[in-house]
């Protein structure tokens, strides 16, 4: 006969359980975004003042002014470089932590999380003491006589990327670590007995099976890097600003809320599109499997 019909209470239960998260999401995410979207159609009069009339002026400005396009493009480039460098730098330690026979693995994982105990801003500022004109590197190089004038290390795009890697690397390592940790060690043994050297077994088994984690890490790092504005602000010159800094400047500097709203929506939509295309291409379920398996 028919399967047990669910009672009304049973059908309601999942929604009741979801309600707190749904309400939070709607009130603190969806609603503000909608308000911002409405704002982007208001008219900017002067700093801090806008007229509540419908205009597409802000959007026309965004689509016509190459100033914004240039920043978008640059943001994508810097975020991509950061994500790829994070992957290259993060894979070996992730592999090591996953494969080590060391009894106190949790300690190594703890070390990854320790930086989060210090404020992100302070961590970023710490680079000034390393890269600055009076920083460790320049002082050392000058003392040893290798250079006569301090090198310009700080306030460059390189410094910005370095700062973002500093902040994003643990996310990348954890993502890759989880997917390598989930690989059955017997698969490696099987590949070895079938004729693979250790390197070939890595290439045939570990690398492909850790791809979901690697891909999830890349997406996460890209999105977080593309949305950041504190790091470029502290470690970059004005030339190294990213799209986030443009938004910050529009809203906090020019007090042009309608334009700032339009730009924020642009960044949000573009990053959303990246995530969607990426997951279509990679299969988001596979990406999430990398996070969960």
């Amino acid at each position, binding site marked *: 006969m028919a399967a047990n019909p669910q009672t009304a209470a049973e059908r309601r239960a999942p929604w009741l359980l979801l309600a707190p998260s749904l309400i939070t999401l709607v009130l603190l995410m969806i609603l503000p975004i909608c308000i911002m979207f409405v704002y982007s159609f208001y008219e900017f009069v002067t700093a801090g003042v806008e007229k509540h009339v419908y205009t597409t002026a802000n959007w026309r400005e965004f689509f016509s002014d190459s100033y914004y396009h240039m920043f978008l493009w640059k943001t994508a480039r810097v975020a991509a470089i950061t994500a790829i460098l994070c992957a290259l730098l993060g894979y070996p330690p992730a592999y090591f932590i996953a494969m080590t026979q060391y009894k106190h693995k949790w300690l190594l994982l703890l070390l990854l999380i320790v930086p989060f105990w210090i404020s992100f801003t302070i961590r970023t500022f710490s680079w000034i003491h390393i890269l600055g004109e009076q920083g460790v590197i320049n002082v050392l190089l000058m003392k040893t006589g290798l250079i006569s004038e301090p090198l310009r290390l700080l306030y460059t795009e390189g410094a910005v990327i370095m700062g973002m890697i500093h902040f994003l690397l643990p996310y990348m390592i954890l993502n890759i670590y989880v997917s390598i940790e989930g690989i*059955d060690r*017997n*698969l490696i*043994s*099987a*590949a*070895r*007995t*079938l*004729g*693979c*050297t250790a390197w*070939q077994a890595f290439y*045939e*088994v570990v690398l*492909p*099976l850790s791809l979901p984690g690697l891909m999830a890490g890349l997406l996460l790092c890209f999105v977080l890097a593309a949305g950041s504005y504190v790091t470029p602000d502290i470690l970059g010159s004005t030339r190294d600003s990213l799209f986030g800094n443009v938004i910050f400047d529009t809203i906090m500097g020019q007090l042009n809320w309608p334009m700032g709203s339009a730009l924020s929506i642009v960044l949000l939509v573009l990053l959303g599109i990246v995530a969607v295309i990426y997951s279509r291409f990679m299969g988001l379920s596979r990406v999430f499997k990398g996070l969960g398996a």
Partner: protein
Amino acid sequence: MTGPSMTTAPAVELRNVTLAYHTFVAVKDVSLSIRKGEFVTLLGPSGCGKTTILRSIAGLVQPTGGEISVAGRRIDNVPIHKRNIGLVFQNYALFPHKSIFDNIAFGLKYRKVEKAEIARKVKRALDMVRLPGVEKKLPSEMSGGQQQRIALARAIVIEPDVLLLDEPLSALDANLREEMRTELKIIQREVGITTIFVTHDQEEALAMSDRIVVMNKGEIEQLGTPEDVYRRPETRFVASFLGQSNLLPGRITAIADGQARVQLDGGPEIIAAAPASARAGAAVTVVVRAQKVTIGAGSKAMPGKVISASYLGGTAAYFVESGGIRLQSNATIDERVWREGEAVGITINPADCLLLDEKGDRLV
């Protein structure tokens, strides 16, 4: 046939192999010689070092002492990927991201076999394990029994010098296990491949093996044909591990006409066939299989009382008590099923009794 040494060299030979993980000795001084085409089973309780022996032959762990040769060639120092050994894992370890074809072709690819030949060999291997036409599927699309066959095909297709099977049937349900047992044995005969099979299931070992290596705590307890180890256990461990046996401690009081009179500790006397080395006064353990303990109404037999009875269809399992000792009896039902509390006569044929000395070794 390049010389006599080639034809007589054992397919696999372990000489005094010892392996320690840090301070824990998992395999102690194991020596073993396996003929070409032979099916040898390593049988023993969990943790006795069976997997460790397989892994050291495959090269996945390095013995701390001793020598291992395969096909007359020392392989202890040959790296894993050059050993040409087929290993089937308990959980199959099929590559989940590769098709069945690529799984089976894997070893051939690394042996630089050309494409057309690979395709032919993979097809033949799939025919052999009776799964033709599944090349394009992924392992996750196959059932447990099918994955098992693919793992077997992947190991055999490279024509290894020896096939190592680590509890390959333990993940299957009972019916399938029995079916695969027969099939595995047929395939092994067809290919004529030297096989080392690991199990802790004694029925499996007895049914499939040419010879059985009974292991305990990293050491070989006995090496022999299934009949040898079952009927003539050499140690206390083998006697108690295989089948259901009564182990009755006692002392020999007299020997006459090839028969020893044994006074069981705190119990009755029992007559056992006396091996040549049996001496009056020696402390011994009498070993009697539960099937060899028969109970009936007889009066001249040892008197006893049924403590518990389980009816099993063709046979019945009893616990009977006689003069303070407890005996297990699994007898075919001749007269009738005896009930708890009934007085019965216990008969044990002296020829069915084995004697173990104080150290637990069989007297011969």
